[in-house]
């Protein structure tokens, strides 16, 4: 059976409409360009600014700035954003046991995932640095980067799947540990706190490729003369690595670490898809969604969003300062 005719025509119509919207967008833009291009003299510059810049500024204002301010404001209001409640939502976040678990989990995520992903990425970058065919290895390790978190979760469901040990196993992890002699492995995803680490493994699996590519490029930029000089001075193997190569790429290392940390802090899809935040695996980004769109409590949701924002800001600021320094030294 082929696609039902109705589905097929629906699809064609839908995509047709979408392309029409895109075409109209560009047609209108060209028309505006044409008309605005006629302006000359004193008017030329203001009109150019109006056409080029104002759309973006308006979108950012409506889409990011105003909503962020409103979320901040809602975080001091009740579930339906009508009654002012002072700092109650923040009190709730830091005193409710369930949310304390969420905050602890988030802390665990932002320490374990970035450190391990960066360490692994660095190790692999060093190892492939001298290899032939390194492009193939790099591609394979890098590949998870382009897979959606949702896709990754489905992939890892086939690793963490649990069956009673009397049944034939379909989860790879269970199969491996049973083969190795652990007769009754636990139901991985349900066992806290182990399940948190298992979810973090997925993040590491995704981010290691990123760390590897960036650090590999940084290692290549260390001048050969420096390596040569160090070797003449008697630095080999691990010593060469720890006292020459690592210090040379330290700022990149820090940027990679904080970058993965920022991504980890915002991680939502993995938890949402794997456990929905159940079994004590929730993190701030997921809990924010839960509070807002499942519990319908705007106050709680907004407070969690603000906490997330406060967590991200110093990291981004630190990143920017690091990059400034790096640029200044070059």
């Amino acid at each position: 059976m082929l696609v039902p005719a109705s589905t097929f025509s629906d699809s064609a119509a839908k995509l047709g409409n979408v392309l029409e919207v895109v075409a109209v967008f560009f047609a209108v833009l060209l028309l505006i360009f044409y008309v605005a291009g006629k302006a000359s003299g004193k008017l030329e510059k203001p009109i150019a600014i109006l056409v080029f810049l104002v759309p973006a500024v308006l979108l950012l204002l409506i889409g990011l700035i105003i909503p962020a301010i409103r979320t901040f404001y809602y975080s001091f209001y009740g579930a339906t954003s009508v009654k002012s409640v002072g700092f109650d939502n923040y009190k709730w976040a830091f005193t409710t046991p369930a949310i304390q678990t969420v905050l602890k989990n988030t802390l665990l995520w932002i320490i374990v995932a970035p450190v391990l992903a960066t360490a692994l990425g660095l190790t692999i970058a060093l190892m492939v640095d001298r290899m032939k065919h390194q492009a193939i290895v790099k591609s394979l390790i890098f590949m998870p980067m382009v897979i959606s978190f949702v896709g990754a979760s489905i992939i890892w469901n086939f690793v963490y799947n649990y069956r009673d040990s009397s049944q034939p196993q379909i989860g790879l992890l269970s199969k491996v540990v049973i083969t190795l002699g652990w007769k009754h492995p636990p139901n991985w995803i349900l066992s806290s706190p182990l399940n948190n680490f298992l979810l973090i493994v997925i993040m590491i699996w995704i981010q290691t490729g990123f760390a590897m590519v960036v650090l590999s490029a940084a290692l290549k930029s260390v001048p050969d003369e420096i390596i040569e000089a160090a070797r003449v001075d008697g630095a080999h193997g691990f010593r060469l690595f720890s006292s020459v190569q690592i210090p040379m790429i330290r700022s990149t290392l820090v940027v990679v670490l904080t970058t993965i940390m920022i991504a980890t802090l915002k991680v939502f899809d993995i938890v949402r898809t794997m456990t929905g935040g159940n079994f004590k695996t929730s993190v701030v980004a997921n809990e924010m969604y839960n509070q807002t769109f499942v519990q319908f409590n705007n106050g709680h949701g907004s407070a969690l969003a603000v906490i997330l924002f406060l967590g991200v800001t110093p990291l981004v600021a630190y990143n920017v300062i690091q990059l400034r320094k790096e640029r200044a030294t070059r």
Partner: protein
Amino acid sequence: MSAGALSADTATATAPERPVKAVRKSLGRPLITAAVVALAVLWTIPTFGLLISSLRPARDVVNTGWWTFFGHPHFTLANYHDVLFKSGFGGTGGLFPFLVNSLAITIPGTLIPITIAAMAAYSLAWVRFRGSDAIFFTVFALQVVPLQMTLIPLLRLYTHGAHIGSVQILPSLPKGTYYPVWISHTMFGLPLAIFLLHNFISRLPADLMEAAKIDGASHFRIFRTIVLPLSTPALASLAIFQFLWVWNDLLVAITFAGGQNKVLPLTGRLAQLNGQFGAHPELLTAGAFVSMLLPLVVFFSLQRYFVRGLLAGSVKG
């Protein structure tokens, strides 16, 4: 990345690979090679397992591990057939309609923000006025705002419109359409896109712009005939990232299109199905692979742009 790395890291990225020098003569090379190969295999096995699962009959997927496939190869394309060709829009059988939705969201969700960002970047770099630096800095700083900060107010805006007093200044958006998702992706994509394109466009040779000015070209003409063609590499890198970001996104999708199968993309549907693991394992396996196919094709065919973009700054949201 917090996106500042463009100038710092692209330099290292584009540095040509030197021939391996004798100095770097390796110790224990076979051991290292073996370790690297083992890691690469380890990294690939989970994905490979899913690929095998997607090619097995639904009954086998539920009853036996994918590795038994090699002992008893039962090979079928039925899962892909079901995923692609069953059911229609608004239904829950196949995934084809959701795939169409993904495309319908991603095409405008990539083209429109990049166009608007390129225009803004050009004006910030070459149509200078008092305050353009302040605007640029604000745009840069906006990258710290997590998506989560904006969801509740935006959802309200889309459903109720915006009012000042009783005067409606922005209309509400019709439910069950792509508009909220398109607009959201456009707004969320802008800070990084403007920042990266500004880095690139501001370094185009000033002589070129001035020569065009002297020839009487307007800003609009310069933008179309000089800036856009010269910025193709930057635009390509950015387009790949925006495409991947929109295609793989779940949060924006379920917030602004959640519960509406008419417009929900593939990621949203797969996340639902994964929540009820066992209900449709065959749809999950093949569906996940279908959803990965386009990103993987883009990745392998445009790897150079991809890596360049990554080094320039890849993390946002």
